[in-house]
């Protein structure tokens, strides 16, 4: 059974990321964004019978779907929490598509986000909360810097194997900042940056500079998934789920057989096969970008360029919304901010805006098809999506 095109994104909302949450709670943010998404879809809260969550950043995860349903006074017939790290948002969309296609629910709300607390984030407890027992026992004694050092290991090895340069990695942050300048909701949208600015910003973990690291913040995003038959009668341009694929080869990067090759190779291949499409068909790339090396590896492993040529590929393309290869037109998380698990959802919501034609000053001209990738851990869990404006867009 091929579920390509059986479900569509029919509602979407996203809060502007904030460094200071101003005393608000994760549940408060989720309730606000849920209300907006339901309104966007032209639905009533009572129409929502599916509820998928990504984990909260600070609250207890225990019974989280029920905690949220209770706070929102909802009684869903299908509910769950998806925990694949940064890939959770894309993975929630996939699970919602399966659920509405199978008839377990009619309109499934995927909710993501929460409050970021710098004190928790920087504490030993905060660090240990995102580590496996193996990481705590065998990595922590050596002083790794969480995700920063994991991606640094990948970047250094990629430079060694393929000759990727610091300038090529910096260019991703530079182009994405250009995109953020056209996004009023981006956290960093005031000032353009140059490659020199990036390379002159402090080295945190070699070869990663400060301007190449996402800024954690507070925020939330939501999408509603409905069956395609219903979507055509709903107010928005339906954004069909044409391809979905997942993969995981490791949790900690230490245990990846080849740290410069990610499971995107498998998740993207599965998504393209389901959709009957290929990388060259895509008009927009919306790729998880906790660091520039993440984007380079994703481009290579999803098949947009040959393995090892990702650095040269980004150098030879204009990644802005005006360019020949629009990539992370919202600014990417590097400039938009990383509102916890909603950072992963930001790649979905931007693709929805672009495909609907609602991206305002940063609207791309050709907007039929988008490739979205969610990435969790250190290139660990991958969830790839192909979104399209046409239900049967096979080329």
């Amino acid at each position, binding site marked *: 059974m091929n579920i390509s095109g059986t479900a569509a994104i029919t509602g979407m909302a996203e809060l502007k990321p904030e460094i200071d949450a101003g005393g608000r709670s994760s549940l408060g943010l989720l309730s606000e964004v849920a209300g907006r998404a339901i309104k966007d879809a032209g639905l009533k809260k009572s129409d929502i019978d599916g509820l998928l969550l990504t984990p909260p950043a600070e609250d207890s995860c225990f019974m989280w779907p029920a905690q949220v349903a209770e706070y929102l006074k909802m009684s869903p017939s299908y509910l769950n929490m998806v925990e694949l790290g940064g890939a959770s948002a894309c993975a929630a969309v996939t699970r919602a598509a399966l659920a509405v296609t199978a008839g377990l629910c009619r309109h499934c709300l995927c909710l993501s986000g929460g409050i970021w607390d710098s004190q928790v984030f920087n504490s030993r407890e905060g660090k240990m909360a995102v580590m496996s027992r193996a990481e705590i*026992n065998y990595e922590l004694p050596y*002083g790794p810097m969480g995700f920063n050092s994991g991606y*640094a*290991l990948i970047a*250094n*090895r990629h430079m060694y194997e393929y000759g990727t340069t610091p300038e090529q990695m910096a260019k991703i942050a530079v182009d994405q900042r250009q995109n953020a300048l056209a996004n009023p909701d981006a956290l960093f949208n005031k000032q353009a940056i140059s490659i020199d600015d990036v390379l002159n910003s402090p080295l*945190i973990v070699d070869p*990663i500079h400060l301007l190449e690291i996402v800024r954690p913040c507070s925020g939330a995003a939501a999408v509603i998934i409905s069956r395609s038959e219903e979507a055509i009668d709903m107010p928005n341009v339906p954004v069909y789920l044409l391809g979905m694929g997942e993969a995981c080869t490791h949790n900690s990067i230490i*245990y990846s057989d080849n*740290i410069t090759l990610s499971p995107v190779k498998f998740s993207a291949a599965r998504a393209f096969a389901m959709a009957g499409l290929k990388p060259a068909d895509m008009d927009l790339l919306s790729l998880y970008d906790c660091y520039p090396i993440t984007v380079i590896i994703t481009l290579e492993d999803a098949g947009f360029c040959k393995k090892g040529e990702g650095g040269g590929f980004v150098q030879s393309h204009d990644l802005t919304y005006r360019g020949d290869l629009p990539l992370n037109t919202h600014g990417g998380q590097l400039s938009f901010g990383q509102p916890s698990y909603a950072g992963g959802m930001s790649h979905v919501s931007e693709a929805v805006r672009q495909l609907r034609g609602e991206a305002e000053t940063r609207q791309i001209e050709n907007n039929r098809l988008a490739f979205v990738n969610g990435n969790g851990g250190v290139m660990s869990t991958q969830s790839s999506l192909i979104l399209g404006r046409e239900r049967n867009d096979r080329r």
Partner: protein
Amino acid sequence: MTEDNGKKWFKKGRTVLKVQYCPVCEKYIFFPRELCPYCLEVKPEWKETVGRGKIYSYTAVRRSSLPEFEDRVPYTYAMVELHEGIRIPTNIVDCPVNKVRIGMPVELAWIEESKDIIPVFRPATP
């Protein structure tokens, strides 16, 4: 499972580095597990390594928010591929961070860290 039930694979006074090995699958295993992850059947044995390897990848940590590492920056966090073919996380010592290279031959050393003696690596003596 081990040797401190897998919680610490290193003990004070240790001079040899042991890792798990499945005699049936003929594979080394890291991190330690109760059962071999390849066959999910055999209890792994502990085998001595020669204590040599080469750097697979590394990074210089220049800012650390871990209190016990704050005054140690910059230091090298690395993946070392042991002679036996398995990779482990470690630090590279006795070598300035800007002299560390991928492929560099390294040998076992031991340092004290949070009341434990833990295995680290230094540039190999020829």
